[in-house]
């Protein structure tokens, strides 16, 4: 599968601060998905990026796919305690199996 590295592994922010997590690949990706897993919960799909340089927004969340399609980022503006959880990026491989290869995730803690 297509391996990705996520940084940072952990991030502690004060409520109201911004947060960014990065997803990097050594190879060109055809697409990337982002998932959020709340503590004790299961991963939930957030977004899929396909086009080079694509930017998508969901309220306070901004997702970007790099021009070279080798990296992606998730930026949260003015974090809230509801943003707590682990954010995973995952390149998607169609080829019959529709497999996702999850990064190790970035665990976000928000201090109220």
């Amino acid at each position, binding site marked *: 599968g297509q391996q990705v590295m996520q940084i940072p592994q952990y991030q502690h922010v004060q409520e109201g601060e911004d947060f960014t997590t990065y997803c990097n690949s050594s190879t060109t990706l055809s697409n990337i998905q982002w998932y959020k897993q709340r503590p004790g919960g*299961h991963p*939930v*799909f957030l977004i*899929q990026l396909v086009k080079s340089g694509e930017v998508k927004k969901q309220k306070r969340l901004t997702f970007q796919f790099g021009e070279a399609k080798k990296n992606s980022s998730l930026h949260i503006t003015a974090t809230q305690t509801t943003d707590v959880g682990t954010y995973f990026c995952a390149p998607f491989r*169609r080829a019959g199996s*529709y497999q*996702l290869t999850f990064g*190790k*995730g970035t665990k976000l803690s928000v201090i109220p």
Partner: protein
Amino acid sequence: SQTIHQWPATLVQPVGSPLSLECTVEGTSNPNLYWYRQAAGRGLQLLFYSVGIGQISSEVPQNLSASRPQDRQFILSSKKLLLSDSGFYLCAWGGALAKNIQYFGAGTRLSVL
């Protein structure tokens, strides 16, 4: 709408005992099905996936096996559990009908003691 059920939610098993975790999907046909394991505080490791009844692909050789006896049923098994089998097991469905998205069940927390 589609739903995915996974049970049990929590399981404590002694070393050497067998394991059977079940996952069923409702509201869709011929889904791709996946079993993942997540060690405490770690990422998701794909264990098995299935594109159809009786078709199982293994990603990681280990003490576990999977079966798909029916279109919307996916079972994870072990004949003898090891301590290292402890973790959070997640079932997911996806594929073309899901528009490439994977939908996860609530997961089973397995502790092998």
